[in-house]
């Protein structure tokens, strides 16, 4: 491909443009009539744009219907195709969900369940779930189909209040009940709102567009005179492109014409005539409309011609449907059994895993150090290890229980040792004792002379002979009493004060302790000896 620069270009038009002018002029006349019949002032561009979109919508819808029909055929349920088609149409009208969304969802459910009834029920439920959760219908249908065969991963997003383990082990019926409880009636509630009403209208308009598109395709085929789609699309493309150019020129021409006074008068006259002729235009259009309806019926004629044959094969179809339902139920039961088995296996695995977590080398060392008993527990642990390796669940459970029990006792002992109260100060009671000693000594000193008074004499006689001797001064001057009645005791040694006495006693006790002499400590009474 060479690159070029055009110098001094001029628009000269193409031969094809001139050929298209006539065709577009004819098309323009019929388009304007259609606009009048519809009672709205539609621009040619808008009508042609709608036509293109309608054709496209019809083509896509037809392709989706073909895919669903093929899937149904592959399941051996070809007889149910008309029933499914009407079910989809009715559900689309009732729920406001476009049929091009319903068909893929139904296909996913049908291929998984294999049952017409179940798949239709699940589809209705899927619509409720989709409206309630905000997840699109295709995803919901796929999640339900997956859940039917035991894959519940996709259900997490619906927040059913089940843990992952519960989701894995729950049956499909349980899951369905949960979903119903959470999202039941969501679609009806949505349709009662303004947005829901608009959705119904939009869906209905979409269906109308598809129907018109189908009619347009047939009309183009008739006009073009051939049925090759490639040629047809080329012609449609040229027509659509040239219409814009034609009307551009035409509009300019009309504008120039309308400025002329005589033309203005003619236009006002034409308006009056159009009003009168308005009714007759409908009469002109009606025959075409009727002809189009006749052609549509003719296209459906092969189906209706086979209606009597369908009536003859009804019992056979009913038998096939019953067999299909039976097969589907059998498969559902097999799935449920497989799921139960899987659940039991999962539980077993979980138990073994739990038992394994108790076997801890560090704990053995700690318990042995605390208790000093190794042989019995080690034996139990070794037995448990063997049970885990041989996957003997019952034995592992028993030993786990015993070990757990054993560990529980050890743990309790360790706890009790740790929670013992602090030891009391052994010398805390000394002060009390010395105070008492001082009191006794004072009492002794209260006796001034021997036989001073009767009370004193009584008290003096109650004292021991050694103490009496001390008090009467008979102990070699080591003790005596003054005239004032004070008793003095001379203690030989270095103890001159109370503190010296306390120190002397303390030192004596420490000496005894270091010398290995036994000392008894009564913690509770605070006594020692």
């Amino acid at each position, binding site marked *: 491909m060479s*690159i070029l620069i055009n110098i001094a270009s001029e628009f000269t038009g193409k031969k094809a443009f001139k050929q298209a002018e006539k065709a577009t002029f004819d098309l323009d006349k019929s388009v304007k009539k259609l606009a009048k019949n519809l009672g709205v002032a539609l621009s040619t561009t808008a009508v042609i744009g709608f036509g293109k979109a309608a054709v496209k919508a019809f083509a896509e819808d037809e392709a989706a219907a073909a895919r669903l029909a093929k899937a149904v055929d592959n399941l051996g349920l070809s007889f149910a195709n008309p029933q499914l088609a009407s079910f989809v149409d009715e559900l689309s009208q009732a729920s406001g969900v476009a049929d091009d969304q319903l068909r893929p969802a139904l296909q996913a459910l049908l291929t998984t369940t294999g049952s017409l009834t179940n798949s239709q029920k699940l589809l209705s439920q899927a619509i409720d779930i989709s409206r309630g959760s905000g997840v699109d219908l295709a995803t919901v249908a796929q999640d339900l189909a997956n859940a039917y065969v035991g894959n519940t991963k996709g259900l997490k997003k619906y927040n059913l209040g089940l843990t992952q383990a519960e989701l894995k082990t729950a049956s499909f019926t349980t899951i369905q009940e949960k979903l119903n409880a959470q999202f039941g009636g969501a679609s009806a509630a949505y349709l009662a709102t303004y947005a829901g009403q608009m959705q119904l209208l939009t869906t209905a308009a979409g269906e109308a567009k598809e129907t018109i598109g189908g009619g347009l395709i047939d009309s183009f085929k008739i006009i073009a005179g051939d049925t090759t789609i490639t040629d047809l699309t080329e012609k449609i493309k040229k027509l659509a492109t040239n219409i814009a150019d034609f009307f551009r020129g035409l509009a300019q021409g009309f504008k120039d014409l309308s400025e002329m006074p005589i033309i203005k008068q003619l236009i006002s006259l034409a308006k009056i005539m159009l009003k009168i002729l308005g009714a007759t235009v409908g009469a002109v259009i009606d025959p075409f409309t009727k002809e189009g309806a006749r052609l549509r019926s003719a296209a459906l004629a092969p189906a209706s011609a086979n209606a009597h044959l369908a009536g003859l094969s009804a019992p056979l179809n009913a038998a096939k449907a019953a067999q299909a339902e039976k097969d589907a139920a059998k498969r559902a039961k097999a799935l449920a059994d497989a799921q139960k088995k899987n659940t039991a296996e999962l539980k077993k695995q979980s138990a073994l895993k739990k038992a394994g977590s108790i076997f801890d080398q560090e704990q053995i060392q700690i318990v042995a150090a605390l208790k000093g008993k190794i042989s019995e527990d080690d034996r139990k642990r070794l037995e448990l290890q063997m049970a885990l390796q041989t996957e003997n669940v019952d034995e592992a459970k028993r030993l786990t229980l015993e070990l757990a029990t054993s560990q529980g006792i050890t743990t309790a002992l360790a706890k009790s040792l740790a929670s013992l109260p602090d030891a009391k100060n052994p010398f805390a009671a000394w002060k009390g004792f010395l105070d008492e000693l001082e009191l006794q000594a004072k009492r002794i000193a209260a006796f001034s002379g021997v036989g001073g008074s009767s009370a004193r004499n009584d008290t003096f006689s109650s004292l021991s002979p050694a103490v009496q001797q001390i008090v009467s001064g008979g102990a070699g001057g080591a003790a005596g009493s003054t005239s004032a009645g004070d008793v003095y005791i001379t203690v030989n040694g270095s103890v001159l004060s109370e503190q010296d006495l306390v120190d002397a006693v303390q030192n004596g006790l420490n000496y005894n302790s270091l010398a290995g002499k036994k000392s008894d400590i009564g913690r509770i009474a605070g006594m020692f000896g």
Partner: protein
Amino acid sequence: MPTEVKGAIALRKALRQFEPDLAKETTKEIASFLKPVVKQARGYAPSNEDVPSGWVKRPNAGGRWAARSYDAAEVRRGITFKSTPSKPNRNGFRSLATIFNKSAAGAIYETAGRKSGITGNFTPHLGGQLKGKGQKQQGRVIFRAVEEDQGKAKAHIIKAIEKAAAKLNARSAS
């Protein structure tokens, strides 16, 4: 860049029909205005040493890139002009004169990097300057030459057409 004129093509047709010598003269005159632009454009095509060595055409080379490898002589040979009216393009336009860059390698050198920018391993090593207005009217060879010509050739061509029209009218009147 292309200037829209009215009636020039019809004039050329009329000249060919009624005044063939005047038609030839007009063609030669238009060519004389285009030759300097084309010569300048050929000068902008680099030599083999100035382009990435892996792109240079090798003898007995095969494969898809054999026809797209760069050869300075071939590229310069492909830079030409046409001074007679062209056929209508798909939009219905015809031009009085055209400058071409016909070779594949010439087209690559002309337009490389004008959309994606001078990035990567190839375009930064091409050299040259992308000149022209707008993304699709930029280039290193013919577009650069026409841009630097600043419309002088175009003006001369239109003047030549007008002169031919005047001569035709004068001859018709007489």
